[in-house]
Structures are given as structure tokens and as C-alpha cells.
């Protein structure tokens, strides 16, 4: 099982979910370039100008580790990255799991993505303010957390640390691109996990994704927000297990 994190995070966000699959699957976790513990110096703005560049990285990992017929679990933007990767090399993945996917965040004629261009500019401004003005805010200090023993003590300070330039470009690529056409080409059976009250990927978008995919299951989660694997790991695990059974 290959787990791919979404915009704003890194592989550590999977830590509540992966233990449930360790018995039956080999777990592959990674950070996209510029995120978490990755080597920022290898970042190439031209390569990552579209989600295709990220999909190529996923495939490169698969080639390196000889991964075939695996399960790809992608959160948020990674759901689409997984769709592109699965289309480019169909034998790599037998199943896709999309958590809170959205193929296009901007509203368009006859399509509700949930956002206007000005909203995304607001996000870019917010990113600028936080990274430029108050960068310490984005480099969290992780300490032993008695209230969250399930997270383990070794959670590192790199959690959710993203290179500011990378974050900016990733935000643009994520929120301004249109990957609706990629959905129809996905050659494998896909689970769409849709949260209740997700402001990033509203229910209508989840239903659209489900309708466009050639072979998919839509599961509505009780969990609210955009990160059910963090806020409701048990429910998320159960839904994925039911799909893989």
C-alpha cells in the first residue's frame, strides 16, 4: 500500500491509519519534494508545474521498489496524483483510495468546485504571511504529548514542515489546475471517501468524482473536515478495509 500525503502535510499524517494495514500489506510512505524530510535541493519548479510531475515521482518510487498491483491511498490533491499515475502505468495499482478528492477547486460553467480565483489568492496571501512573517508558526515544536499517547513520542519536528517556495507552487498547482479529464481515464476500481462538511472538497465534488470515474464506490464518512485519517482514523480504516475486502 502506497500512502501519499496532501497539500500542507507530510507522510506523518498517516501514522494513525497505517498500523491497521501492516499485517497484510507492505506499507510505503514518502514525502513529496519540499515536504517533511525530503531533499529540497532536488526541487525542480518546471517538473512540478503540473500534477503530472508529482505522479512521475510516485511512479519512480514504484519502479525503485518494484511495486506492482498495489493499493494507492491518496489524500486530497494526492488522490488526483494517484489517478494520473494509475493512468500512466496501469499495472502499478489495482485499487485507488481517494480521501477528499477534488479534480478542480475553482467554480466553472456547470461545475461547482467551491472556490473563486480570489479565494485562492487569499490562500496564497495567507501562506505568504505565515511563511514570511511568522515562519516559526509553521515549524512546530513537537514535544511529548500526554494527551495523545497514540501518536508516539518520536513524532519529529518536521511534521508538516514545507519549504515556503514549494508550498506556494504546490498551492497554485493544486488549487488552480483542472484535472477533471483525468478521472474518466482511471483504469482501476476506486474508493472515494467523502467527509461530512469538508470545506476543501464539498460533497457535490465527491459525487462528481464518483460519477466521472469508470469504476468507483462512494463512501460517506461521519467524520467532519478534510482529514478523516487524523480526526476519525477508525472510521477511515474500516471504510478502506471494507473496500479492499
Amino acid at each position, binding site marked *: 500500500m502506497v500512502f501519499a500525503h*496532501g*497539500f*500542507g*502535510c507530510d507522510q*506523518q*499524517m498517516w501514522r494513525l491509519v497505517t498500523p491497521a494495514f501492516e499485517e497484510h500489506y507492505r506499507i510505503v510512505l514518502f514525502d513529496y519534494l519540499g515536504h517533511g524530510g525530503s531533499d529540497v535541493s532536488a526541487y525542480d519548479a518546471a517538473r512540478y508545474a503540473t500534477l503530472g510531475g508529482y505522479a512521475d515521482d510516485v511512479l519512480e518510487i514504484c519502479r525503485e521498489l518494484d511495486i506492482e498491483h498495489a493499493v494507492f491511498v491518496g489524500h*486530497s490533491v494526492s488522490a488526483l496524483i494517484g489517478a494520473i499515475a494509475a493512468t500512466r502505468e496501469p499495472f502499478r495499482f489495482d485499487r485507488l483510495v481517494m480521501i477528499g478528492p477534488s479534480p478542480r477547486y475553482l467554480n466553472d460553467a456547470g461545475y461547482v468546485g467551491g*472556490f*473563486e480565483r480570489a*479565494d*485562492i*489568492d*487569499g*490562500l*496564497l*496571501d*495567507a*501562506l*505568504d*504571511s*505565515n511563511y*514570511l*512573517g*511568522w515562519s*516559526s*508558526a*509553521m515549524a*512546530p*515544536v*513537537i*514535544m511529548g*504529548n500526554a*494527551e*495523545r499517547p497514540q*501518536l508516539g513520542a518520536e*513524532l519529529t519536528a518536521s*511534521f*508538516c514542515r514545507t519549504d515556503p517556495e514549494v508550498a506556494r507552487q504546490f498551492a497554485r498547482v493544486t*488549487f488552480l489546475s483542472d484535472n477533471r479529464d483525468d478521472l474518466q481515464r482511471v483504469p482501476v476500481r476506486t474508493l472515494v471517501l467523502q467527509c461530512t*462538511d*469538508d*470545506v*476543501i472538497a464539498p460533497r457535490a465534488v465527491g459525487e462528481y468524482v464518483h460519477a466521472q470515474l469508470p469504476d468507483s464506490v462512494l463512501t460517506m464518512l461521519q467524520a*467532519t*473536515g*478534510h*482529514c478523516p485519517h*487524523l*480526526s476519525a482514523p477508525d472510521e477511515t480504516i474500516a471504510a478502506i478495509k471494507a473496500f479492499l475486502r
Partner: protein
Amino acid sequence: MAHDPILAYGALLDEDAADLYEHAPCGYFSATDDGLIVKANATFLGMTGYSREQFLGRIRLLDLLSIGSRILFETHLRPLLRMQGFVREIAVDLVCADRRQIPVLLNATERRQGEMSVLRVTVLDVTERRMYEKELLLARRKAEDAARARSDLIAMVSHDVRAPLGAALTAAAMLEKSTPTPQQMRYIRIVQSSTNQAVTLLNSILDLSALEGGRAILREKPFDVRQLVEQVRAGAELDAARNPALDVRATVDAAVPERLIGDRNKLGQVLTNLLTNAVKFTPSGLVSLIVYAREVSTDTATIECVVTDTGIGIPADRLTHIFEEFTQASDEIAEQYGGTGLGLAISRRLLLLYRSDLQVTSTVGQGTTFSFTLQLPRVAD
């Protein structure tokens, strides 16, 4: 009877705590698991223009954020809160009751008890600070644009000046071969030396503009440290040949590995700049270059390069200025010794590529020492 001020003032002190909550200089509110706001202080209500009735139990935290801030909250802050239980000083935009937006800094702490959790949030209005920040950013962007425009102009003009200078040098070389009279020969030499000076100046300006424009990159390859030092020393010795009272020496600490990985040309340029300066400003005595091994591990070596002379020295009040472009220690120095005043500025910028810097100490009449340290990877055996 003993008088206990805490007891006596107890009621008043309690009131203080409640008063502080209500009228603290920052907004304060609490939200339930699903984001519903259930408690807020007067400062926050005043800041956002909501009445208590409109607000409590009706508005969710996300409703209070601009859409851009909502995305930031859901993609960055929610995971952070879940993982570490708090976030500090996050810049977001709040939407007030009248739809007006105000920039705030937000601190949040999640308190969990079993399955339930409450989010406690403090909010600081930073409208003025954000305006100041934006002005700073704008000023920085403008300055960067101006620097880029200037360096582009320099690159273009320099190119246009280089061609005629090259032609002048070629013509002078041809004249030299046409059996000129001794007087004509003198004139040819003047043309050559003036033109060469102009070319040197041009090269320095180009170097500097490339460094300023961020176009200079390190070309790192394995190189032989001792060979480089010897080459730089020999060059300086040639410089000093006219002055029999001046000795040029170079030593490399035995602990410095034979081969390191780095940009040989740029390192050579810095050392040559320093030695050329030292030779120029030292009428008699010694100019020395010593390379020390400061820390050597299996992977890397930290070396310190020290250039010392017994020259005229630099007055203390000029020390910080000598790194500025086109600056020399004084006008008289510039007149007497010539030079572009670019060498140290270039050296310093070259070292910046290695996150290193030039150090200088000097005593007028006794001499000057320049030094810098570099950490370079070793060549694997």
C-alpha cells in the same frame, strides 16, 4: 489581629480575573469539537462586531475565517492541532459581522477529555502590523527588481564596451609588430596598459553583477588544495617581483586533506584577490597565506584560509567600509594605489555562496589579516 490582604481583597481579585477575561487586549473564544463557538470575551465580540446572542452557539470557527484562511486552516492547522494539540501565531483573516476582514494572529490549544475536545483560541488584531509587513515586502520586491534591472543593464553595456576594447588591443598588438619607433612603442604601451585596466574593471563589474543578480552558481568538483595554493602564491610572487623588499609565502597545514570538493575557480579568485591586495599595500616585509585544518572528519573538512601582510594597515573607522563596492580605505589610497575597489566586495559575495564570510583585523602601520573558513566535502577514497 493579622490582616490577610488576599482574604480581604478576595472578592475584588476574583472580579479581576473575570474582568481580564472579558477585556483582555486580545480576543478569546472557545469552540467545541465540531467548531461551534460556545464562549467568547467582550474584546473578541467588539473586534468582530457580533452580539453575544448572534454569536454563541450559532457561529462556527470556519465561518469566521476568510475562504483563503479556511483552506489554510483545514490543510495546515487542523492536522497540526490534531498532532501536537496547539498552534501558535498563525496569520489568518477574520470575517466580521459586517463582512469586513481583519488580519489577526491566532493561537489555539486543543483540550481533550476522552472523546470530547474544546479548542481555546486567542486572537490578536494585527491590522497595522500587517500593513507594515506588506510595505516591507513591497519595498523588498521593488529593491530586488531594481537590482535585477541594474545588473541586466550592466551586463548589456559591458558587452557593448568589451568589443571595442578588444579591437583596440588587437590594433595595438598589430602596431607593435610594425617596427614602431621607440616613442611610438611607448605610446603603444600606454594604449595597452590603459585598455587592459579597462578590461579588468569591466570583468570585475561583470562578476559583481552576476553575483548580485544571483546568477553565479558554484561549480563544484574535486580539486587539489595544495596545487591551488601554490598557483595563487606564484601569481602573487610575480606581482611582487618588482619589490625586492617583499616576500610572499604560502603554507598548507599537513592535516588539510589533499583533495576536497569545491569551486576551484571561485576559491582561487578569492585567494588571488586577497593576495593581490596584500602585495599592493605592503611596501616591505612579508605577505603570507596559510591554510589551516580546523576540523576534519571522514566526510568533510573545515579549513581556514588566512592572508596576513606587514603592510600599511587599515584605520579602524574604515574597516567596515572596505567591503562596499567601489570603496577604498581612503581617497588618497585610491589615488596612490589605483584599483577598482571591487575585489573585496566580489570576494565577500563569492564566499557568501558558501555561507562563509571574510573576517578582517588590522593595525595601521603594522599590517592586515583577512581570513575565512570553508566547510568542504572530502573526496571519497
